[in-house]
């Protein structure tokens, strides 16, 4: 990657983030708070100390994976906005396997529990993929509907069927020590695994035929069809792999951070994934900086409210503005930057 091309590709996301923060500052000011103080608190809590960094990386882990899940969809011409549901399903399944299966050593129990997360996430992705491939239903609607269905389903499961005994809250029992992801030097080890996976996905798209096939389908379906690539198969693969990665994100969250499944946690992770994927220009490695930034903001939002009296929802608003600035062409045009590589198909047809 040449230096000039690099700066052209990444200038837009960086400026988009700065513009979003600037607009956010104005809104904070209008609300009668001090934007400088708010941002200072936000960043010092997120990146200013080892414990802060550990928290940030912990928050960033599921975000890297949800961003990857959206990225894989975008590359294959699909807009997977159901990462939220896939992730939550994975979080529940992994937590269930983490407390229900007894008597296994950690080197078997932990992978098995994570596998449950991957498999259930992939299953949910596959439902949307199959509806798209065989019935031609646009994934945007099915995945949104599945999000709501799964939210209600896991709420029921964690609140009734698999509820912790004697508990009023909807939550499962705590996972066993044999399913807990160990920490390395008090850093969440799931994060390093997520980075490795991002490299893996990047390698698949850059160097393998399977990746090339998916990308061809994403860029031009008829051309892919003429070349003998099965579009249906690609849709199924992209949704299943994306769902599986999202499910893994949920699993790591359950087994490494929360220690059980509780429906009130893991909210919004999937939608941040959309922002992260588009901020990363649909590049598997591009999701890493975005996920760290957003993870830091999410982790430090409560402290910022305490320090500067700004509602933590300012983070939602800044992220929405980031998404707007990074996708709107005015910045790219102004900065003479290159466009996003993959374009997703508009319209309900195939």
């Amino acid at each position, binding site marked *: 990657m040449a230096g000039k091309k690099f700066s052209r590709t990444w200038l837009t996301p960086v400026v988009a983030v700065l513009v979003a923060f600037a607009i956010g500052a104005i809104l904070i000011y209008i609300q009668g708070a001090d934007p400088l103080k708010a941002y200072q608190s936000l960043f010092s809590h997120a990146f200013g100390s080892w414990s802060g960094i550990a928290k940030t990386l912990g928050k960033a882990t599921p975000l890297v994976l949800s961003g990857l899940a959206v990225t894989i969809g975008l590359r294959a011409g699909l807009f997977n906005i159901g990462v939220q549901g896939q992730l939550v399903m994975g979080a529940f399944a992994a937590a269930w396997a983490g407390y229900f299966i007894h008597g296994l050593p950690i080197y078997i129990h932990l992978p098995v529990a994570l596998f449950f997360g991957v498999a259930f996430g992939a299953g949910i992705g596959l439902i949307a993929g199959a*509806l798209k491939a065989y*019935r031609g*239903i646009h994934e945007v609607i099915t995945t949104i509907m599945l999000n709501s269905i799964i939210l209600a389903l896991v709420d029921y499961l964690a609140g009734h069927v698999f509820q912790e005994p004697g508990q009023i809250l909807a939550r499962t029992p705590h996972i066993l020590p044999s399913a807990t992801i160990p920490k390395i030097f008090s850093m969440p080890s799931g994060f390093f695994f997520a980075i490795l996976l991002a490299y893996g996905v990047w390698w698949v798209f850059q160097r393998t035929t399977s990746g090339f096939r998916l990308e061809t389908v994403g860029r031009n379906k008829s051309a892919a069809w003429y070349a003998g690539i099965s579009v249906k198969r690609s849709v199924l693969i992209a949704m299943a792999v994306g769902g599986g990665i999202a499910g893994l994100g949920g699993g790591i969250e359950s087994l490494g951070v929360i220690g059980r499944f509780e429906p009130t946690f893991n909210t919004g992770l999937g939608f941040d994934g*959309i922002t992260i994927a588009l901020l990363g220009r649909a590049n598997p490695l591009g999701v890493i900086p975005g996920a760290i930034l957003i993870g830091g903001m999410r982790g430090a939002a409560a402290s910022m409210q305490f320090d500067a009296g700004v509602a933590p929802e300012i983070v939602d608003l800044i992220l929405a503005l980031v998404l707007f600035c990074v996708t709107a062409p005015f910045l790219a045009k102004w900065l003479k930057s290159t466009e996003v590589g993959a374009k*997703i198909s*508009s*319209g309900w047809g195939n």
Partner: protein
Amino acid sequence: MKKLLSFKWLLTLLLVVITGYFYSKDGVITSSVVSTALIFGLPLALAAMVGIMCERTGIVNIGIEGTLLFSAFVGFFTASATDSDFYGVVAAVIAGTASGVLLAFMSISWKMDQIIAGTIINILATGLTSFLYKQGHTAPTTSEIDIPWLSKIPFFGQVLFMHGPIVYIGLVLIFVLYVALFHTSWGLRSRAVGEHPGSADTAGVSVFKLRYLNVSIAGAVGGLAGAYLSLELVGSWDRGFTAGKGFTALALMIFGRWNPMGALAAAMFFGLTQAVTNQLMFSQIVKIPDQFVNMLPYILTIVVLAISAGKVRPPAAEGQQYEKEQA
């Protein structure tokens, strides 16, 4: 086509017979269930109109959810601040129009991918309303207007003529849209732009202007739907309280074949399933966990799409950018 037509009438007849049977058993409950079906179905129908107006001119709008959330928010807090339900509704319609203009701007002027443009509206609406939301406010809600004479008719009186003002406005609007879309030159031009913008352009129709106009008006309709949600149906506003209605509306639009009457019928069917479920739960005839009751509309949406997919044809130029040919 003929086969489907008879199926449609058969289904209608069946519904009429069932309703008649229950009405003879218990008139009060049956009237209230059917009336509730209209109350639940109307926001979906109005939101589906937003989709129809946009897509008939070739613009995909998946930002309806955001339009509903944002306009309901603006409507509620304006009504709260001015202590007037009327100003609240007006503000909601203006807010809806603004979101329509933003979508038009992104997808027509900036030629952005329309799915991404719609998603931005959704996420922006969520972020903005979450940040600005203040708990503990109340607002005056619209009050029920009983139409003189007509509301005295047994059954139909309660079902059709004892509602809040937005129900009447909404129903009239849907019929007007139906007539306008298929029986006026505006409708013909709009559909032409959605099917083959090149030909429409050749015939002297300004593709950009008409798309801008229709997407903006659609936003206003979405604003009315938002006002209905916060000021007439629920009477309050909460984060994410639109609960996917904007997406369900798109499914109803597809199921109703991009026809206002079809979408209205589909929305009423949705409303009816919800009203019947509520009644069953209320009278404790069946005991289903709340979560499964909440799931019902989402599952129905997917089922409805799975049934209608492949049998319906969307407007041909939908989702595509139109580039004027250079001389």
